[in-house]
């Protein structure tokens, strides 16, 4: 995987395969875009979009995504993902983690690092200890249903001492159990519980991983793309509310 560092800036064809492996669908698309910023513009972006509609956002989302790309894109040149390999911090991290740092990009000025889940915890604690990213702003997940690595964990970090803002992403497969970051940031406690509740991703080493927003005995994880927005857990309703079925 030594080639990973270079291809990003130089060779284009290898990108798609790499990105499906490591970074998120969104990113993969824009990685291409990022590269294309150096090359010529829009074609690569177009080919990136059709790969997306795997996710059923509901009927409208899927169809519009399909319709959309060929028509409007060329008119306006939106922001693109830019490569960040030359960034000082990134190089520092690259030295430390080598290939585990899958990619480093920025979008609209926000730095995004994609890290291999295997060394995610190490990388985060390294960021916390060595680079002083002491503030975990947010932790959430994305669902790329249909892809091999279904989940993408997204960490937003901030460092009070240096004022840097950083987004860490990590793609994991369904069934993977990433390590909880509660030992590093206490704030992660509820955030991870929420992810567990909404997506069904379990974290190892979490003090009490249980549902937080939905009732404890609810079935299903609503923020998964395959969960219908109106799907109510009728067995729960039957058990807890003294009504047989919620009509409608």
């Amino acid at each position, binding site marked *: 995987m030594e080639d990973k560092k270079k291809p990003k800036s130089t060779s284009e064809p290898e990108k798609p395969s790499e990105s499906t492996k490591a970074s998120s669908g969104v990113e993969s698309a824009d990685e291409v875009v990022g590269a294309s910023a150096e090359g010529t513009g829009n074609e690569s972006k177009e080919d990136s979009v059709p790969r997306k509609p795997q996710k059923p956002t509901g009927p409208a989302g899927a169809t519009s995504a399909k319709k959309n790309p060929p028509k409007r894109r060329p008119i306006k040149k939106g922001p693109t993902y830019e490569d960040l390999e030359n960034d000082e911090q990134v190089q520092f991290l690259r030295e430390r983690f080598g290939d585990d740092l899958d990619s480093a990009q920025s979008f609209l000025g926000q730095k995004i690092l994609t890290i291999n889940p295997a060394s995610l915890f190490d990388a985060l604690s390294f960021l916390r200890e060595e680079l002083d990213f002491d503030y975990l702003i947010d932790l959430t997940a994305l669902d790329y249903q249909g892809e091999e690595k279904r989940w993408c964990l997204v960490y937003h970090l901030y460092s009070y001492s240096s004022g840097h803002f950083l987004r860490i992403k990590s793609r994991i497969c369904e069934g993977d159990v990433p390590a909880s970051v509660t030992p590093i940031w206490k704030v992660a406690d509820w955030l991870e519980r929420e992810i567990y509740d909404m997506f069904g991703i379990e974290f190892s080493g979490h003090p009490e991983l249980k549902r937080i927003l*939905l009732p404890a005995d609810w079935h299903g994880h609503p923020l998964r793309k395959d969960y219908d927005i*109106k*799907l109510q857990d009728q067995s729960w309703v039957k058990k807890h509310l003294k009504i047989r079925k919620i009509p409608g």
Partner: protein
Amino acid sequence: MGIDERAFQQNVVTTTVDSVVNWARKSSLWPMTFGLACCAIEMMAVGASRFDMDRFGAGIFRPSPRQSDLIIIAGTVTLKMAEVIQVLYEQMPDPKWVISMGACSSVGGPFDTYATLQGVDKVIPVDVYIPGCPPRPEALLYGVMRLQDKIDQMSILDDKRLVVSS
């Protein structure tokens, strides 16, 4: 039963008692301190200076369901909360009234999702529905007045609450 049913029909005594009791009940509607979401903020505004629900005798918000006559369902009722609302409603002493304030508690409002109950009337009986998202404070005051009209039609002869006619 053996008792002539006509004995319990409306007569001068019962109607007079009715009017006195109904007057007392409608003049002293103590709501429960119970807010759910956005509408609860408007409900607080109704209790505060500019609108002042206390003018109608309905200003003493009781925190305990045992001491309140009126529960204003102010906000989205989720399924998780519906369970609690049922208990709260049962804890209130009779006669008790329910105002469903706002679109969410009446029909689910804009939140047609997995977690929300589409109308609180699916779990407890509702006397007055107030539309709006959230309703203006005046709307809640009007709702309270409509409830007072409804209470006026009650009779002590009925154990259960009267269904409002027309």
